[in-house]
């Protein structure tokens, strides 16, 4: 291939960058609005209905109540994520989740250590463990 002049190549590079960025923004739009059209099954969306707990227990039920009162405004009623992340299929240990809930994340998530006691946090974790899919 014959090499281009540097100035001409510079203009082409700017054009290619713009096209690539616009293309990726377009892909993002397609993913946001038409996930079914690109056939990605079981893909987490905030519009999907919440999965029902497989085996609801008293702890999980109370945990869900705590979740709706304290967490849902950031993580969504169905815990599929809104401002905060999707909490389905968490692959963190109970201890780690406990730590995050009680200590919070600097600049990201408030601490609930003063508001929720240890049994509350454990019930919350029990509820989170029922969220699959």
């Amino acid at each position, binding site marked *: 291939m014959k090499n281009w002049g*540097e100035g001409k190549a510079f203009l082409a590079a700017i054009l290619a960058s713009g096209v690539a960025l616009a293309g*990726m923004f377009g892909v993002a739009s397609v*993913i*946001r609005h038409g996930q079914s059209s690109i056939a990605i099954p079981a893909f987490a969306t905030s519009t999907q209905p919440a999965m029902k707990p497989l085996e609801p227990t008293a702890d999980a039920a109370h945990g869900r109540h705590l979740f709706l009162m304290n967490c849902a405004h950031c993580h969504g009623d169905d815990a599929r994520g809104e401002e905060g992340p999707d909490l389905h*299929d968490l*692959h963190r240990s109970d201890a780690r989740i406990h730590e995050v809930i009680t200590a919070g994340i600097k600049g990201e998530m408030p601490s609930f250590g003063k508001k929720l006691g240890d049994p509350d946090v454990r019930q919350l974790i029990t509820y989170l463990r029922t969220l699959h899919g």
Partner: protein
Amino acid sequence: MNSLFWERAHGGLTHLPIALIFAAAFFDALAFFCRRSRKRGEFKAIGYWLVIVGALGCFGAVFSGLLLSNGTIGGTGAVLRHHYFVWPAFTLIVGLATWRFLVGRDPSRRAFTLYLGIMLVGCSLIGAAGFFGGEMLLGH
């Protein structure tokens, strides 16, 4: 394919282009500073191909990230900070690779100096994007 799958796919698809782009910058810098070396042409050839393959790899990295985040361009918190650096880095690397591809392996000294300077900015942006990406996983 749930969000955990895309989290792993994004991690896998991201590190290869990062490594390729950094290596491209390294070999191009070698070519720039070792002007009298007999290997100079080879360094330039390595930098040339690495930046092109790395830029192609960036598409996979960005695409998997979009799938992971449900098509989020901005977001909030750590995701937003990650994206502040991802989009400029992606744009810059695609532009640099396109320019290099079109100009060939041996641009003028002046153009190559400018290219290396912008490459340094691109590597810094990639590094920052990677840092905040890692913060999302390991920072809490």
